[in-house]
């Protein structure tokens, strides 16, 4: 079972994804695959808050900021993997070193790795961000990032059984369902 969860920020995607992962894994192994590589104190505070919020949900945390399919080698593929988030993963893959040029192969690497998880893990829940519906005009680098993340989203939406969008914690189902 594979589920993609999208939507704007602060809409409850992570909490919803955790609850779905708990339901899917019942008694099995449950992994929270954290993709954010902390950059500053704000990031570290955010990570600490997330760790506290999932403390009693029974997740084993795997930190995997790049080469996302690598999490499979450190876990039981019969378990349930919550990948939070594709956005942070793509940032790490696309902008690997400050000051270095953008890595154009990043989106395809992310797609390959994420789809490997979808195909080989028992259950996977992917969290992504919806960044596509505003009137801002971005610089080329940001626009490339938006296009790349959207390509990752479309690829995941195609392989996932269920695709939902969260809107202020309400669920809009775009594919499949949540009866499992």
């Amino acid at each position, binding site marked *: 079972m594979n589920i993609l969860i999208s939507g704007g920020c602060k809409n409850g995607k992570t909490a919803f994804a955790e609850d779905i992962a708990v339901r899917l894994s019942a008694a099995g192994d449950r992994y929270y695959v954290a993709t954010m590589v902390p950059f500053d104190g704000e990031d570290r505070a955010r990570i600490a808050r997330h760790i506290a919020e999932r403390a009693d949900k029974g997740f084993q945390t795997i930190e995997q900021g790049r080469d996302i399919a690598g999490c499979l080698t450190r876990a039981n593929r019969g378990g349930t993997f919550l990948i939070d988030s594709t956005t942070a993963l793509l940032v790490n893959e696309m902008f690997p070193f400050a000051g270095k040029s953008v890595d154009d192969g990043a989106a395809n690497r992310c797609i390959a790795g994420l789809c490997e998880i979808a195909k080989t893990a028992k259950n996977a829940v992917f969290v992504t961000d919806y960044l596509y*519906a505003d*009137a*801002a005009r971005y610089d080329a680098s940001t626009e490339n990032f938006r296009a790349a993340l*959207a390509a990752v989203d*479309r690829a995941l*939406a195609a392989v996932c059984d269920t*695709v939902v969008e969260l809107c202020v914690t309400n669920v809009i189902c775009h*594919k499949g369902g949540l009866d499992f």
Partner: protein
Amino acid sequence: MDLIIGGAYQGKRAYAKEKYALTDAQIASCTERGDLPLGARCIDHLELYTLRCVKDGVNATEVFRAHAKEWENSVLICEDIFCGVVPMGAEMRAWREVTGELCAYLSREAVHVTRMFCGLAQVLK
């Protein structure tokens, strides 16, 4: 007329091609400078035509109203530019207003309205 709306890179054009069996040659894209490609089987990027209208002081919805016979059997595609923070620039604010007004009009006139999300179609009307 069928209207397809959705954020950037959500698969609007690919969906139109598949759903209506369109070739690339049948899809005319608006630009920030060009005229509205009336009469085309499918018109993409209405949001670029509305940007041009804002710059030229033209009422985009009135243009569509005046030429209704020429797009009544077309597939129209517009990007959803409505969910971000209110833009700082007056021109960008006017662009959202004008595009929103046009989409509301086209949505009323449309037989089908479809929203694209991550490559998936959501039928709104």
